[in-house]
């Protein structure tokens, strides 16, 4: 059976002439029905752009220059007039900021009922019933009352639940989440993650979850892709990647996070900064910041290579990472 979502060799470019650069380069992903993939990386690594390209909602100035996106075996156009129609009932997106994700002058119930009414063609009454059902399903307490509220009358967590309800209102099979928990405090974050987990199990939704937090991925996702400078540098099963990183960047991300089990261990930051997108380093783009890098790293054009069952890494020295990790 075809995977719920399959992205192959996606490439997105920004700018023109001398200011032209690739924000997403050769990204391939695959998510099964009921599966969840975490897409992790620091700000500016292209993870959100990847999602938006899949959704067909690239910001002005960005364009897809290569690659294909298939949903359940059907090709989704990446640009042009058929973009939105092709995604109806297939893909939906949840956004990061619950304060700007809802229309401030419309009651939230009406916003949830909108897609069932105009996209799925339900009657006004049934769309309303469907909206209440969705709100309840997303854990909005007292949906009857909340449906009549305006967004500013709801808390951040409830707003995020409403946004998920809106995303689900068009009956998608794939849910793209663009850091939906980043703007929330930790307890609410945990509830939203649990909700997404439930939805995934109950409805067989495929989820792509963009975040910069490995902790969140560890809770929700069964597979994990780490992006750096527009490319995937490591991909594999979440447990394995987190336990034994196959790329120094992944290890760097892990070390820079706070570990609840050993609170004494100080978070270690990754040295240096993400390079200017117009001046990409030669060879492996991570080599200027990498402690494992040798002279060969700045000349070899690194590619994702299999490094174990279902795991791939774009590091020439991934074997040395095990010892480095245990030493460090």
């Amino acid at each position: 059976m075809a995977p719920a979502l399959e992205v192959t060799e996606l490439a997105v470019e920004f700018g023109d002439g001398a200011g032209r650069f690739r924000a997403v380069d050769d990204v391939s992903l695959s998510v099964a029905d009921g599966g969840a993939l975490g897409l992790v990386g620091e700000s500016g690594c292209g993870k959100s752009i990847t999602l938006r390209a899949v959704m067909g909602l690239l910001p002005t100035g960005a364009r897809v220059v290569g690659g294909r996106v298939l949903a359940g075996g059907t090709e989704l156009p990446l640009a042009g007039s058929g973009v939105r129609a092709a995604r109806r009932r297939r893909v939906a997106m949840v956004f990061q900021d619950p304060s700007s994700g809802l229309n401030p002058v419309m009651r939230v119930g009406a916003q949830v009922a909108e897609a069932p009414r105009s996209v799925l063609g339900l009657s006004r009454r049934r769309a309303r019933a469907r909206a209440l059902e969705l709100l309840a399903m997303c854990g909005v307490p007292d949906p009857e009352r909340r449906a009549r509220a305006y967004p500013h009358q709801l808390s951040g967590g409830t707003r995020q639940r409403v946004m998920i309800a809106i995303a689900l209102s068009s009956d998608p099979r794939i849910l793209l989440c663009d850091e939906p928990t980043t703007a929330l405090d930790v307890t609410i974050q945990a509830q939203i993650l649990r909700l997404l987990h439930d939805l995934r199990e109950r409805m067989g939704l495929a989820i792509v979850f963009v975040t910069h937090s490995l902790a969140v991925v560890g809770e929700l996702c069964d597979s994990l892709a780490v992006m750096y400078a527009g490319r995937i540098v490591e991909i594999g099963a979440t447990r394995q990647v987190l336990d034994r990183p196959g790329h120094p960047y992944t290890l760097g991300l892990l070390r820079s996070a706070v570990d609840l089990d050993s609170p004494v261990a100080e978070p270690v930051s990754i040295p240096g900064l993400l390079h200017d997108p117009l001046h990409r380093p030669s060879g492996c783009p991570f080599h200027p910041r990498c402690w494992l890098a040798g002279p060969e790293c700045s000349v070899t054009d690194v590619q994702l290579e299999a490094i174990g069952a279902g795991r791939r890494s774009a590091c020439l020295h991934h074997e040395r990472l095990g010892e480095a990790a245990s030493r460090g």
Partner: protein
Amino acid sequence: MRLLAVSGLDVQPDVAAGRRRPFVRRAFSSRSLLAGLCIVASVTTLAALAPVIVRYGPNQQNPFHGMEGPSAAHWLGTDELGRDVWSRVLYAGRTDLVVGFLAVLFPFGFGTLLGIAAGYFGGVVETVTMRLVDVIIAFPFYVLVVALVFIIGPGIRGIYIAIALTDWVVYARMARTQALVVRELDWVTAARSGGLSHARVLWRHILPNTISQAIVYVMSDIVYVLLAVVTLGYLGLGIQPPTPDWGSMISDGQSFLSTNLWISTIPGIPIVLTGLGLSLVADGLTDVLRPP
């Protein structure tokens, strides 16, 4: 490595119950809105009730009592033809206010819709609209209106057409700027990604979030249009005699400015009052319509 504890948490989110006061209550708490509405309502009521209030017809001449100062019989005096100024001022209000309010409706609706469409779609729609706007805006408003009325022919019809052709550009520009901001917001992207049609996104998501500025501007615009109508009347291109009109009253009275001051000044008072009232309403509406 345990990174985040999720299990065992089952706290219901704290839902902020902070309700916004209903629109009417907010409106009544704005002093300038209330004051403005009172002024506009008084002027409008007086104009509407003109036939009940006055004792003389607006065009009823009395050659034996021309140019008389205020008296018990003629509260605001009479003009050179012996017509009652109080009666004429009220009747002129009926014409001028109606023309002012009606003339802005088309520019408001058409300009706003075209503007949000331009901002939302971009591309050719935007380029064509905005270049047209640039061309029209390059001319001073009055010059264009006067020229158009002159071409179309003086009178109420000419005023409506001239205002309709020129005034929409202000709304279009304003709405486009707002739409440019709103269309980038997540909820619009979310609505689009949910598969809603362009028409629906424009109508339900963009328009309600851009309209408030246009509504506020309508109030000031009525004043501008009113002034334009009055100016046209003054120039003899506006509402044609014998229908009374504030502008032509001022114009007719100006030859007697040194001897009979009131004939020209009195029609100016309702213009000032209406302008003041509408400006106050606009001011109050800005506060009341401001999004939470």
